[in-house]
Structures are given as C-alpha cells and as structure tokens.
C-alpha cells in the first residue's frame, strides 16, 4: 500500500484516570471510505478531536501526507487538508449559506485579509461557493439565514463548509445525527458522490448505512481500536457481535 494520507501512531489521551484513547494506530489510504463505529463512550469523537487538533494527545504522533502535524493547531491542519464536521451543528446562524461557504473559500484563498474590496467582486469565490451549495442541493436556499433552514439542510451545510476548504481528508462526526431516516438519503447521496480523491472517515451508528457506504470499518471500544477490516470481516467477527449484542442484553 502507498503512503497513507492520514496516520496516527501510539496516540494516547486520558482525562484524569479516564482513558479515552490508548495506543491508537490507524492509517488511512487515499480515497478510502472508512466508518468508525463503536458503542457510546468508545472515544470516537475524541479521536476526531485529537486528529483535528481540538485536543492535544498525551503521547503519540499524527502524520498527514508524510508530514508530522502533531504540534500544529486546528487552523493549520485545516489548511493542510484535514477537515471535520460536527456531530451537533456548528454553523453561523445569522449568515446565509452563500455567505458562510464564501467565507470558507475566502479564508482558504487568503482573500479574507482584504478589506477594501467588496465580497461580490470576488466572482470566482462566489461561483465556487454556489456550486458547492448546488451540489448539496442547497442552491435554492442559499440566501436564507442559516438559522431558518430545515435541520436536514443545516446538516448538509455542515458538509458544504467542510468541502469549501478543499479537504484531502474529511472527518464526518455522525453526519446524519438527528436526521430522520427518510430524509437522510440526500445526505448519504452527497457523501457517496464525494470526489474519490478525498479520504473520508465517518462516525455512524446506523449499521445499515455503515455497511452500505464504508469500504473499510474501524471498531473502537473503551478508547482502543478493537479491530479494523472490510465490512464482511467486521460483520463476521465474534468480538464485534459481543460488543454490540452483548451490550444490548444488559440494556
């Protein structure tokens, strides 16, 4: 296999005596669709926070395209192509989608430093923002304030903002969280139609979706990686059955 786009080695993190990440070793090759699954509290979101720099690891290294990014802040990691979305909508309520996505593009292009020309002068940035929004079916609502959008549309805008940064690796934290089944189809069409150049790692609880979208699956339990493999390997593994079904018998 070629050099992985994103990899971690020996990643540890604990809050006091609570170990949330222990010796995490993953390597994501380019263009692969990874699902990250595991019971609640397994440390999935923590892992995303560690990889994107929202949390500092106690030990270990994070490499992006052969470069050690462990010491970089979240902004620098985004500029190098490691981008995330949030499980709970983290948007700009009083900006409309057009403004929000244009903002992300302007920051990427370093246009955001200029203050003497109107935003509308940067037609290429606006065109690109619109085409990102259109690809996620947000074109018709692009001038409505974000807080007025339907919940499902806000989830799509989460992805639109991330795409506007031109990611190499996209980490989606429960992209369909809170979206009713019948409405989540749009979202997953959007995810499947993402460019094959982008490596995607997504957290998802709905196993049907996981098995449909992911080409490989990572299972986490108690801050550790239990195993990694293809969907077939995962569904056949007795340990995974125990984690999920075993937990269910107690519930």
């Amino acid at each position, binding site marked *: 296999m070629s050099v992985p786009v994103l990899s971690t080695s020996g990643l540890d993190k604990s809050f006091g005596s609570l170990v949330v990440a222990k010796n995490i070793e993953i390597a994501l090759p380019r263009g692969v669709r990874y699902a990250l699954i595991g019971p609640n509290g397994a440390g999935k979101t923590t892992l995303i926070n560690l990889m*994107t720099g*929202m949390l500092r690891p106690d030990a270990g290294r994070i490499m992006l395209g052969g470069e050690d990014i462990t010491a970089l*802040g*979240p*902004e*620098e*990691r*985004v*500029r190098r192509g490691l*981008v*995330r979305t*949030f499980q709970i909508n*983290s*948007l*700009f*309520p*009083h*900006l409309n989608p*057009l*403004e*929000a996505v*244009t*903002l*992300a593009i*302007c*920051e*990427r292009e370093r*246009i*955001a*430093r*200029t*203050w*003497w*020309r*109107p*935003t*509308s002068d*940067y*037609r290429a*940035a*606006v*065109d690109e*923002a*619109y*085409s990102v929004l*259109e690809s996620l079916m947000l*074109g*018709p609502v*692009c*001038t409505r304030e974000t807080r007025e959008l339907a919940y499902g549309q806000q989830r799509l805008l989460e992805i639109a*903002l*991330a795409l*506007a*940064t031109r990611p190499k690796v996209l980490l989606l934290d429960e992209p369909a969280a809170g979206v009713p089944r019948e409405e989540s189809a749009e979202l997953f069409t959007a995810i499947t139609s993402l460019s094959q150049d982008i490596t995607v790692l997504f957290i998802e609880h709905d196993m049907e979706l996981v098995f449909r979208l992911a080409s490989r699956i990572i299972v986490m339990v108690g801050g550790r990686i239990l195993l990694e493999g293809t969907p077939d390997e995962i569904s056949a593994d007795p340990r995974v059955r125990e984690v999920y079904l075993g937990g269910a018998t107690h519930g």
Partner: protein
Amino acid sequence: MAVTSPAIAGAHQYLDAQVRWRTIEIVFWLATLLPFVVTPDYLVLASQIAVTALFALSLDLILGYAGIVSLGHAAFFGFGAYTAGLISKWGWGEPLTGLLISGLAAGLLGYLMSFIISRFRHLALIMITLGFGLLLHELANSASGITGGADGLQGVKMWPLFGAFKFDLYGRTAYWYALIVLFLLFLVSRRLINSPFGLSLRGIRENAVRMRAIGAESRSHIRKIYTISAIIAGVAGAILTQTTETVSLGVLDFQRSADILVILILGGAGRLYGGLIGAIIYMIARDWFSGVNPQYWYFPIGVLLIGVVLFLPNGILGGLAQIVNSERGQRCTGWLTAPLPWRRRP
C-alpha cells in the same frame, strides 16, 4: 464559466445588493446637515453628537461585527484625546496632522492590546478591557505633570482649520469638521464590513469554534479590526479635544466606556448606523432631560434604556428593520430601503 445560470446570477445579485446605497442612507446623511439651518444654536451639541457617533462606530466594528466585548473602549478615546491635547500644548496646533497623529497613537496602543484581546472571549474580555480602562485612567490621573491630572489639561490652543476656519464658540467649524471626519470614516467602515474581511469578522461573532475548523485566521483578523477600531476611537477623542480645546480625565472615565456601550445597544449593534442613531437619541435625550431636571437626569435615561431593551431587544434599528421587513412595511417603505438601481462596473 461562460454561461451563468439564472440561479447563480441571483446569488451574485444578492451580494451586489448588499453593497449598494439605499435611499434612506442618503436621506440620513442629508439630514445631518439640517442643524446648520434648523438649529444653528445647537451646533456645539451637534458636534458632540458627531464625536459620540464616531466613537460608537468604532465600538460597533469590534462588538457589533466581530463580537468582541469591551467595557474599556474609552481608553482609546481618551488616549487620542490626550495625544491631540499634548501635541497642541507642545506647540503644534494644526488640527489635521494632530488628528492623524492622535489616531495613529491610539491605533498603536490598540495594536499592542490586541495581542491580549485576540486570545480571549466573552466574560474574560469584559474583565480585561475593564481593567485596562481603569489602569489608563489612573495613569493619567497620577501623571499630573503631563496630563494636568484631575484639573484637566490646560493650554490647548488649536490653529484655524486649513489656516482659514477658526474653531468658534458657536461650534460651526466644529460641526463641519466632526461631521466630515465622521462621514469619511463611516465610508471606510462601510467598505470594510462588505469585504471578505468583514464577512470573516461576522463569522468570528457567529461561531469562533467553527472558524477554527474552516482554517480561518481569526486571531490576525481580530488584531486587525481591534487596531482599526482603536484608531477610529482615538480620532473621535482627538476631535473632542480639538473642538473644545480642553481635555479632562472624563475622557478616560469608566462612565464613558459604559455610555458608549449603552448607546450602541440602544441604536442597534452590528448595523453600522446603530451607533449613529443611538448617539443622536442618547445625546439629545441627555441634553433635554438635564435641562428639565439637572439633578436627576439619569432617571429618565434609565427608563428609556429599560424600555428599549424590553421592547426592542435588537435596538431601535433592529426594531425598525423588523417593521420594514414585514410585508406591510415593504409596501409602505420598500422604496426607502431598496438598493439604489445603479450598478457597479463588474
């Protein structure tokens, strides 16, 4: 793209319209000339309103747009005021260069301060700016050899503007001067908030965490806008010094920081005109109430504030915008607030 779809044209039109002037804006600026004709006896008050409006504008840029709270903004106002006074006292009474130097001096102070400011938010910012304001007030108080301390700075003497227009007792030159500077800096601010930089500032206000997650240079944006805001505040302070030819410790008072915050919230933060409208209403109300009852004039001001915040949580302009944007409002006043038809060249 050679062919633009109608939908994307709509997106461009939307952004274009944000920049265009509206009839109501032109009416507003024409109305600022009225005091010369209608109330020539109140030009001193009018020039003080213009100074306050400029100060409020500077606060709006950081608070209304970037969401940076400040309870010590008088520090920059006062720094500009004292700088202008000292330049004059030390023998250089030319107003325009004095104004420029005072603005830059306040801007330098703001720039140094911005390295601390850009690291904090919300409550921490209130404490830091409050402490910074008090610190500067006490410094000015104790350095009475330079500032004159509690007695105020004596011996400020301004030369005539352009060598021709003396700052008279009736405030005629003062109002022209303050109004033109206000208008010019308003134009700069208006351009700034409609730029990609202005968009980023609103992003910081709306969601600082998300700004990090899209790779934004938030800290450098905050440093920049804080410096610009400090320059404008310093210019406002300098105009006050130059038009009144005195500087008192009051320019650095906590009361002034609090007042300007109140004025901005009263008018409506994040709307550029909010500070201007707030300054007009607050200053006229204060002038009027203190005439009616010199001892307890803060009482009706308090009532006014509570009333506005209760019934118009987004300030006077926020309330008006709601009326204008309603269907009925659009029919009656749409022509006032619609973007003017002229188009910018592409």
